[in-house]
């Protein structure tokens, strides 16, 4: 297959500055653009009750002005260079990026260096942003699927900090102080907790010199605290049922899934390919197109007239998280029938009902998607940085080979051992006909 990524096609130059900053540079000279991503090993996993949502709020604050870039100038500088910019916070990572004209590389490095240590956290800006992040939370909770996913995660995970949403709980967002935010910023935004990735039109040696000049003098800090909690084994099925204003009934089934570094991770990708057409391992790419219509779940759920649509999710994470299947039920369908249909398909896999064509199709889908999602400087820089932040960029570069090595027996074993009913959490959201919901963040879920 000519779309297969040659082993040497993406091989970023790697450097580590004296202050601990990891630097990854990958030349792509086809367009006069560079994509600069600055990653921090901090996300909602590093929070605790009372401070949930603080990593995401800090990300917002880091667009609010630094000692050298006034508030209104951060985004302005990027856009004047034709740039696309953004940032996001998730379980394991917080990141900021700019994709700009190549001539603006040094200016973007100056911006990210300033963001690393020089953000202001002016009290007035903190208060303005409090209502903005609360508005973001409430906008998300308007979506019943988002609400159900949050409830299921909080039920499936009872100890690990992946159990609360990255946006946080309303009560915490109302209570977090400027000092909380600034302490969080100073703890995690240090060069020895960061990864800088640049992909695009530059010469690596010159770019590295610019990076050293902009970041080399920043002082390292004490290593941030590690995550100690390991989610205990689940020994029985869990269920959560919520009522919410909604136009449909939703079913979300979640099983515990391994970390991205686990030897079983590639087999999960192949398993999902057979069940649903394969997940993306690029959290940023907008590609995809939904489940494969020849996949087993599409035939069972959509062509079986049980669901109008469904999605699966297998996110690469630092610690074990969840593999989940989320279905929008057709009107009048009992969620129990959909549950049975899903488990029936998993049962077929567990029995080894997988032929060579199934395996080949799943692997081809992964390889093709990988090719489609690593075309732009933005996507390539994202993938290098994301995987380096949660484990190593080599994990991504090696994923195609490891997916290629997955055997039928590996998939059957996962279905049999890991996707059994005793290890699953089943969530159902029933339309509530417009009755007012309980206040956000204080619902009757296990986090209440």
């Amino acid at each position, binding site marked *: *297959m*000519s*779309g297969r990524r040659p082993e040497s096609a993406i091989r970023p130059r790697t450097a580590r500055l004296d202050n601990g900053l990891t630097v990854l540079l990958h030349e792509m000279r*086809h*367009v*006069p*653009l560079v994509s600069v991503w600055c990653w921090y090993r901090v996300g909602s996993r590093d929070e605790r009750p009372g401070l949930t949502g603080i990593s995401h709020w800090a990300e917002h604050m880091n667009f609010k002005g630094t000692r050298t*870039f006034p*508030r*209104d100038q951060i*985004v*302005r*500088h990027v*856009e*004047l*260079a*034709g*740039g*696309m910019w953004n940032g996001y916070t998730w379980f394991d990572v917080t990141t900021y990026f700019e*994709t700009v*004209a190549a*001539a*603006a590389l040094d200016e973007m490095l100056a911006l990210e260096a300033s963001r690393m240590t020089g953000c202001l956290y002016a009290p007035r800006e903190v208060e*303005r942003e409090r209502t*903005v992040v*609360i*508005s973001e939370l*409430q906008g998300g*909770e*308007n979506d019943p699927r988002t609400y159900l996913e949050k409830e299921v995660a909080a039920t499936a995970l009872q100890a690990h900090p992946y159990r609360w949403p990255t946006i946080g709980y309303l009560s915490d967002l109302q209570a977090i102080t400027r000092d909380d935010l600034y302490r969080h910023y100073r703890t995690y935004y240090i060069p020895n907790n960061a990864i800088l990735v640049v992909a695009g039109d530059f010469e690596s040696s010159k770019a590295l010199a610019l990076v050293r000049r902009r970041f080399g003098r920043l002082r390292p800090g004490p290593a941030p605290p590690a995550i100690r909690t390991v989610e205990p084994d689940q020994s029985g099925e869990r269920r959560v049922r919520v009522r919410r*204003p*909604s*136009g*449909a009934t939703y079913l979300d089934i979640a099983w515990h899934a391994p970390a991205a570094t686990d030897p079983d991770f590639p087999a999960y990708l192949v398993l999902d390919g057979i069940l649903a057409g394969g997940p993306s391992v690029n959290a940023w790419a907008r*590609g995809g*197109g939904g489940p*494969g*219509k*020849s996949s087993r779940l599409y035939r069972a759920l959509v062509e079986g*007239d049980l669901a*109008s*649509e469904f999605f699966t999710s297998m996110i690469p994470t630092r610690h074990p998280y969840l593999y989940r299947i989320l279905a*929008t039920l*057709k*009107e009048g369908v009992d969620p129990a029938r959909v549950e049975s249909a899903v488990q029936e398909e998993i049962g077929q896999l567990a029995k080894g009902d997988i032929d060579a*064509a199934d395996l080949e*199709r799943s692997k*081809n*889908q992964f*390889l*093709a*998607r990988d*090719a489609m999602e690593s*075309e*732009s*400087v933005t996507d390539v820089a994202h993938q290098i940085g994301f995987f380096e932040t949660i484990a190593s960029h080599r994990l991504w570069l090696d994923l195609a080979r490891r997916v290629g090595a997955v055997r039928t027996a590996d998939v059957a074993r996962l279905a049999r051992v890991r996707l059994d009913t005793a290890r699953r959490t089943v969530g159902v959201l029933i339309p509530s006909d*417009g009755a*007012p*919901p309980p206040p*956000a963040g204080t619902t009757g879920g296990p986090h209440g």
Partner: protein
Amino acid sequence: MKTSARVHAAPAIPTLRTVLGNGLVILARPHPKSRSVALHLVLQAGAAFDPAGRSGLAAFAATLLDRGAGDLTAQEIASGFDRIGATFQAAARRDTLEVECRCLPDHLEEILGRLRLLTESPTFPEDEVGRARGLTLTMLAERAQDTAAVAEETLQGTLFPEGHAYHAPRLGRRDSVEAIGRADLERFRARLLRPRGAVLALAGAIGAGAATTIAARVFGDWENDARSAATSTSAAGRPLFPERPFFPDPPRPDRAIVVRRPIPGKTQSDLAIGFPGLRRNDPGLVPAMVFNCVLGEFGIGGRLGQEVREKAGLAYYAFSRFAPGLGPGPLVVRSGVTVDKVERAVALIDRTLAQVVRRGFRPAEVRDAKTSMSASVPREMETSVAAAATLAAAEFYGLGIDFPERLPGLIAAVTHRQVEAAARRHLTTGHQVQVIAGPEPP
């Protein structure tokens, strides 16, 4: 700090344009680093062409293109794509029905053949039609609970009166979707799925000449159905685009209109304010784009985002957008606002818009927007998917396939006076339509 921004022309990658005897325009543009190919087919078959009482027909048909075609069943079609990791997505927009495929270069000819079969000969099997109806009705029920969707659709239905091509929602209404049957779909196919007026753009890991040769071989003998010609320009008025229909301007409201759409139980309201827009080939297009960038795009939502989000902290988002098409797509101001802050946000947006009309923009605001827009052109053409979609749209709307290359120069030529004139033309304050969708205020 000195900025290093410059006006950049898009990279000089030539696009090959070929017109087949049946009228299909083929565009091919290689991408030196891509490992895949993007195909983008645009047909003049969007929601604007839905017959009376059948709103949602184009969207309905789009979901069925890959659910049976020629002698192939839905599963045979799906297996054909999934086996090689190719993707197929079809969607109806306002003016167009668009199909996007992605595949690895080895499979280009196979995918082109499949693309032709699916657009020329969909069979609309009865069981699939029933399934698609159920899917659409579920989506409509979900959208009725979605504050953003309700705000946008209510705005569109209020700005454009009953009978206007842009009045009905793209997905249709419950009664119109329930009424759609196989006969409607078959008429849709015969009337609108045709090569004349359509554009096929190919971009990515291809040679432009070779890819065009293959595409011409595959699509060259696709014939225009005799029934298609008579209905292609159904609306009255002078055609602005050769071979494209004319959709008239809607009447201007004689006063400001406020519509409230209560959706109980939601935690946030969505606000949509609509003003007169413009067509894609309007001579004022580029000045209007610059005006919109200053008003609601540059930075975090332009002047609107500065006032509503950054300074007042009233919303997570506040922005504006133009949606120019064959008809006059409106200028829309949008914001998502916490329930107890809706009135403050509305008042602040009104004040901001009035100030723009009265005092105009600062020279630096216009300069920054122009610089940003010009410099962003190479980025917007970087990926194969984006390049194919951009080129297909430029061709379909008669802007010329060199439009991306010419755009930086066109933007540079826009004057401050033109931008302020665009503001006065479009911000007809006192005659806007304002929709608030969400829970009742406390």
